[in-house]
């Protein structure tokens, strides 16, 4: 194997391993995160980073052939539909009333409501 081949081989192995790492990390995050909204983020880690890295590794393995074109097409499609489906899930959850839990801020104080109560007079500066 010439110098370049070994370099490409090692590079593709690096991409596939890091992609696999991100896939497993995303799955662990999906399992262990406390509530739905943080799990949503963890799941989209696999869809974006994991998929792209693994497919990049496969592209290098395949070189300049039709296979690489197919992989790029799948990658583009997953890159577009990943966030879209995540958004659809989040929207469906939010609309049907699944609200993120209002946790106390760093100062241990209840965060003021998102929408200012119109009845409240404006606090003097």
């Amino acid at each position, binding site marked *: 194997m010439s110098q370049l081949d070994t370099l490409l081989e090692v590079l*593709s*192995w690096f991409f*596939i*391993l890091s*992609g*696999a*790492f991100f*896939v*497993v990390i*995303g*799955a*662990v995050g*999906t*399992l262990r995160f406390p509530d*739905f909204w943080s*799990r*949503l983020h963890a*799941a989209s880690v*696999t*869809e974006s980073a*994991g*998929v792209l890295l*693994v*497919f990049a*590794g*496969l592209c290098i*393995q*395949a070189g300049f052939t*039709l*296979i690489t074109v*197919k*992989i790029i*097409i*799948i990658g583009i*499609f*997953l890159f577009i*539909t*990943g966030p*879209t*489906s*995540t958004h*659809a*899930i989040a929207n*469906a*959850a939010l*609309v*049907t009333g*699944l609200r993120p839990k209002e946790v106390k801020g760093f100062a241990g104080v209840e965060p003021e409501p998102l929408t200012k109560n119109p009845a409240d007079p404006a606090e003097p500066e």
Partner: protein
Amino acid sequence: MMFAVGIIAVFVAMILVLIRLFSGPTLYDRVLAVNSFGVHTVLLIGLIGFLTDRPDFLDIALLYALINFVGTIAILKFFRYRAIGDKLHIKDEAET
């Protein structure tokens, strides 16, 4: 050989997502797990295609990615509007 490592990693990720699928408290955890499982399947098919030197697996992976997305949206639409089709005909019957 590195494909085998990738396949094992995707398998482990699939099992973890399946655990989330069965234990997920809310419906949307389960929809999220199904969607994530589908993406893992796409990766698995791609990697197995490369492991066994069969480039035609990538067409299957592309098809699976398409169907997985459509399936997720269909599930969400069903639970959101209680019907996949349009509900206009129900309203018309009620009015006539």
